[in-house]
C-alpha cells in the first residue's frame, strides 16, 4: 500500500524536476493517443515535436507563438503566487488588441515614430481596464475573481465581434469582417527578414527580466509570496491584501493587453474576428509549468508554443485534427499537477512507522 507522507519542507529539487517529468509523461500518453486514433505514433510524434523545429522559419514561428504565451504567463504568475486567480486573460488580450488597434486605425495612412508606442500604451490600458473590473469587485466586495474575469472574457469576445462587424470593419474590405491593414508605422518591425518574428519578442524578453528582478530582489516580490503562502502572516505584517489584488490583476491584464496588441500589429497586421487561438487560457498552463517564475515561464512558453506548431504541422502532414493541440496542453497540465505530489510529499510503501512526534489529529 502506497501512502503519502508530507515533507517538512517542499523539495526544491522535485520542484524543478516535475516539469520535465510531466513533459515525458505527456509524450508517452500522446503516443498512445495517436495509436488509438489510428496514426503511426513515431511518424506523428516526429511531425508534432521535431519537424516544426527543423527549419529557420519554424524556429522563428516558435518565437512568434511563444511571445504572447510568455508575456501573459509572466503577468498571471505574479497573481497566482499571491493567490489571485485571474483566468480572464483571453478577454484582457482581446480588449488590449481592440484598444491598441483602434489607436493604430486612427493614424491610418500616417507615418510617425510615436504611433507604435502610443498603440502599446493603449493596448496595456485596454487590458488593464478589463482586469480592473474583477480587481475592483474583488477588492471592494470580495466577489469571486475567477468567475468575473471569465465572464468578461465572453463579453470581450462578443464586443470584438460586434465592433469588427460594425464600426471597425474596413470600408474597402468588400464587407469582410476585418479592419483595415495597419499602416507600416503602426506595424511591429520584423527581426529577421522572411519570418514573422517581430520586435514584440524582444520587448517581452525585457519585461520578463524586469518582472524577474521585481519578484526576486524587491520587497514587493517578497510580499507577493507571503500573501500567497501565509495570508495570516501577511496580515500580521501589515501587507495590504487589496493592494495585492489590484497589482496582480493590473499586471496580468496589462501584459495580456500588450500581448493582444502585439498579435494584431505583428503577425496579423489588422483586427480580425479571431485574434488568439486561446493564448490567454494556455498561458495558465505555461505559468504553472514555469513554476510561476518569470524565467521558468520563458522555457515553458517555448515548449507549449511547440504544441501549437506541432498541431498545425500534424494537420498538414499527417492529416490529424488540430484539436490535438488542446488535448496535449490539457494532458501536460494534468501530469504536472499529478507529478507535483512529489514536491510536497514522499511516497512511502507499507504501514506507517510509529510516530515519534504526536501527529496532528491523532486517531
Amino acid at each position, binding site marked *: 500500500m502506497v501512502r*503519502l507522507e*508530507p515533507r517538512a519542507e517542499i523539495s526544491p529539487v522535485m520542484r524543478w524536476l516535475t516539469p520535465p517529468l510531466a513533459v515525458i509523461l505527456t509524450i508517452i500518453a500522446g503516443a498512445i493517443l495517436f495509436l488509438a486514433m489510428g496514426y503511426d505514433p513515431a511518424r506523428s510524434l516526429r511531425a508534432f515535436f521535431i519537424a516544426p523545429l527543423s527549419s529557420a522559419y519554424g524556429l522563428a514561428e516558435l518565437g512568434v507563438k511563444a511571445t504572447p504565451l510568455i508575456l501573459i504567463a509572466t503577468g498571471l504568475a505574479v497573481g497566482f503566487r499571491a493567490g489571485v*486567480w485571474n*483566468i480572464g486573460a483571453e478577454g484582457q488580450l482581446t480588449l488590449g488588441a481592440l484598444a491598441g488597434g483602434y489607436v493604430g486605425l486612427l493614424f491610418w495612412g500616417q507615418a510617425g515614430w510615436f504611433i507604435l508606442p502610443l498603440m502599446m500604451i493603449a493596448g496595456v490600458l485596454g487590458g488593464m481596464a478589463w482586469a480592473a*473590473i474583477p480587481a475592483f*469587485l474583488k477588492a471592494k*466586495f*470580495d*466577489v*469571486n475573481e*475567477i*468567475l*468575473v474575469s*471569465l*465572464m*468578461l472574457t*465572453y*463579453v470581450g469576445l*462578443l*464586443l470584438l*465581434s*460586434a465592433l469588427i*462587424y*460594425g464600426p471597425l470593419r474596413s470600408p474597402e474590405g468588400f464587407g469582410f469582417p476585418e479592419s483595415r491593414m495597419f499602416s507600416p508605422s503602426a506595424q511591429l518591425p520584423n527581426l529577421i527578414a522572411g519570418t514573422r518574428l517581430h520586435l514584440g519578442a524582444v520587448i517581452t524578453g525585457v519585461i520578463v527580466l524586469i518582472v524577474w528582478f521585481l519578484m526576486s530582489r524587491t520587497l514587493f516580490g517578497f510580499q507577493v509570496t507571503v500573501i500567497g503562502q501565509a495570508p495570516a502572516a501577511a496580515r500580521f505584517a501589515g501587507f495590504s491584501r487589496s493592494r495585492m489584488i489590484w497589482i496582480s490583476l493590473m499586471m496580468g491584464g496589462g501584459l495580456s493587453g500588450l500581448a493582444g496588441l502585439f498579435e494584431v500589429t505583428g503577425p496579423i497586421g489588422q483586427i480580425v474576428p479571431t485574434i488568439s487561438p486561446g493564448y490567454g*487560457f*494556455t498561458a*495558465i*498552463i505555461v505559468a*504553472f509549468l514555469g513554476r510561476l517564475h518569470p524565467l521558468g515561464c520563458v522555457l515553458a512558453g517555448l515548449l507549449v508554443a511547440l504544441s501549437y506548431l506541432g498541431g498545425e504541422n500534424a494537420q498538414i502532414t499527417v492529416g490529424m*485534427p488540430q*484539436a*490535438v*493541440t*488542446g*488535448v*496535449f*496542453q*490539457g*494532458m501536460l*497540465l*494534468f501530469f504536472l*499537477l*499529478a507529478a*507535483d*505530489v512529489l514536491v*510536497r*510529499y514522499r511516497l512511502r510503501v507499507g504501514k*506507517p512507522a510509529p510516530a515519534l512526534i504526536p*501527529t*496532528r*489529529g*491523532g*486517531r
Partner: protein
Amino acid sequence: MDGTVALLAAVIVASTPLLFAAIGELVAERSGVLNLGVEGMMLAGAVTGFAVTLTTGSHLVGIGSAAVAGAAMALVFAVLTLSLMANQVATGLALTIFGVGLSALVGSSFVGTPLPRLPRLDIPGLSDLPVVGPLLFRHDVLVYGAVALTLAVAWFLAKTRGGMILRAVGENHEAAHGLGYNVIHIRYLAVLFGGLCAGLGGAFLSIAYTPMWIEQMTAGRGWIALALVVFAAWRPLRVLVGAYLFGGVTILQLHAQGLGLFAVPSQVMSMLPYIATIIVLVVISIGPWKARLQAPACLGRPFLPTN
C-alpha cells in the same frame, strides 16, 4: 396568453442544462470539493451524447454514455485532487482546458451532422390541461429529469443520513474523519455525481436543445452553473430559482434579438447572460445577502488522512 405560456416553457427548457450542471456541482461543493471543471465535463458529455446517439440510434443510450463520460472526467479530477492532493483550482482549470480539446478532437468528424431531436414525452392526462399542460408536461425526459434530480438532491441533503454525512464532511472533515467516516471515499462519490450531472447537462445541449455538435457549444454554461451555486447559497431549491432566472435572461435575449426590439447589434444582446452573472455575483456579495452566504467550511481545503 399562448405566447406567454410558450415563452415560460422555453425558459424551463433553457434552464435545464444549467440546472443539471449546478445541482451536480452543488453536491460536490457540499462535500467540500470545488471543481472548476464543470465546463469541461459538460463538453465531454455533449460530444459523447451526440456521438453515441448518432451511432446507436438510441437517445437513451446516448444520454447514459454522456453521464458516464462526465463521471469519467470527474474521476480524473478526483484522483488528482483527492488522492494526489493537487490544487483544486488549478486541476479544475486543467479539466476544462482538457475537456475543450478532447471534445473538439472527438467531435471533429461530427461537425455539421444532423441528429433527430430527443422526442417530447407528453405526460398522459396532464399534458392536455390548459396552461399547465403546455407549460410543464410537454417536455422531453431530460427536462423532467433535471427538476426531479434537483428535488431528489434537496431531499437527500436535508432528510437522509447519507446527506447528513456528506454535509458533515464538507463542514468539518477532521471531525467526520474522527467519527469514522471515510472522507476521501465520500468526496469521490460526490465529485463523480457532479461529473455525471454535468455530462447530462451537456447531453441535453447536443441532443435536445440544439441537436448537433458545435465546438465549445456549452458557451460558458459550466461557469454560469458555478456562479449559480454561489447565488443559491449552496441550497438545492434556490438553484432551481437561479436556473430559471438565467434561463429567463437567455430567452429574453433571444426574443429581443428575434424581434429586433433594441437597436443594438445582436452580439450586445448575447452578452446579457454573462453580464447578468456578474451582476448577480455582486448583488449577493453586498448588503443583507452577504450574511447568508455560508459556503461549506471545508470548501477547497485538501484532506490527508493521518492513519
